[in-house]
């Protein structure tokens, strides 16, 4: 009794929104709106998204990152999201976990990219405790683990930040063929292609167990309050227009042209 009272005292409140199969563009729009117009802390868990979709970071260049001809042939949607970072292909085998927080929500955490990533790594360390062969990265910085089962990225505003992660609970090998090896790959990647670099989380943990463990880990740092999607929409400012968007086929076609022009020059 005394322990649970201590845990509840002084912990910041976070609203937990559990979704299933929400399209990734809809999720990104919701996240960006909550980042810009809400003053609450949020943890959003989206268990899978409906259709395979490619999601690039804010500055991603399709001609450098994507096998565009295959993407156009197979009619795979490509989204440019509002956060930084690299390119992922997501589908129903992906589990998304997003934190949207006020800058003072986590005591002692500076709202800069590396501290936020280090904080999230510590949280996910709790999730994966005792499972598989996950080890913390070197370089004195807590990073994603080997084998790679997640991709993370962030956006930071004056008073709030968002950190979202896509976990590869499962994936289709054929989908990885839509992505090129990025030029700006992190050092730990060492020019390995996607298949060499990632693994399926389902080989280590069940879907429900991962989500339960994540919620438990979040509960160790925040006071959880369940929320519904309607609650999230009620808090949103109506004037804000999110910037994440679907790229048009014409834009992808132009990217092929740029790629051909660059290779000829």
């Amino acid at each position, binding site marked *: 009794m005394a322990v649970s009272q201590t845990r509840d005292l002084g912990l910041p409140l976070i609203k937990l929104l559990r979704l299933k199969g929400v399209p990734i563009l809809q999720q990104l729009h919701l996240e960006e709106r909550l980042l810009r117009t809400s003053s609450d802390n949020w943890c959003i868990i989206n268990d899978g998204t409906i259709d395979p979709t490619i999601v690039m*970071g804010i500055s991603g260049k399709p001609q450098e990152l994507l096998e565009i001809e295959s993407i156009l042939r197979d009619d795979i949607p490509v989204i440019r999201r509002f*956060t*930084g970072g*690299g390119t992922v292909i997501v589908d129903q085998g992906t589990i998304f976990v997003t934190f949207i927080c006020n800058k003072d929500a986590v005591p002692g*955490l500076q709202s800069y990219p*590396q501290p936020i990533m280090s904080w999230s790594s510590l949280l996910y360390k709790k999730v994966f405790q005792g499972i598989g062969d996950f080890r913390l990265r070197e370089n004195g910085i807590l990073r994603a683990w080997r084998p790679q089962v997640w991709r993370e990225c962030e956006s*930071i505003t004056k008073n709030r930040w968002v950190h979202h992660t896509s976990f590869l609970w499962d994936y289709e090998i054929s989908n990885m063929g839509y992505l090129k090896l990025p030029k700006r790959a992190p050092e730990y990647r060492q020019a390995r292609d996607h298949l060499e670099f990632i693994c399926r989380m389902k080989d280590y943990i069940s879907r429900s167990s991962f989500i339960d463990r994540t919620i438990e880990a979040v509960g160790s740092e925040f006071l959880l309050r369940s929320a519904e999607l309607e609650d999230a929409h009620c808090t949103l400012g109506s004037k804000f227009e999110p910037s994440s968007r679907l790229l048009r086929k014409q834009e992808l076609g132009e990217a092929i042209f740029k790629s051909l022009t660059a290779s000829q020059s």
Partner: protein
Amino acid sequence: MSSKLWAARAASYLKISFQYRGFATVIKDLKYADSHEWVKVEGNSATVGITDHAQDHLGDVVYVELPDEGAEVKQGASFGAVESVKATSDINSPISGKVVEVNTKLSDSPGLVNASPYESGWIIKVEINDADEVKSLMDSDQYSKFCEEEDAKH
């Protein structure tokens, strides 16, 4: 040679005055916002960028999202973003006015923000509405202390 000595030599060559505090450089004649942007006001024109403290904490900048020329900026509000390690971070304007020039070199060389945050890494030039707005900003001493206090808290 220490970085402090290099900084002193560079300042002497460029004929700028500066203070060196810890690892982040602060330039004496600029004004600073608590969101780590600097502004240099000359008449009704202002130049804006992010500070050495900011670029150091953000990491290698790989992309700068610039506003359009002619866009209005408002003190304290976001006008663009920098992308560094897996993150975008808002750039907030320390002054209100109209954007008259953007640093187009940042499109090909975003790393200028890291290498030269107060000189060639400038981000926008603004025709300012109200020069009195700078009174709400910090001078170099205040900003240095602000950075030290902020870093000490974490």
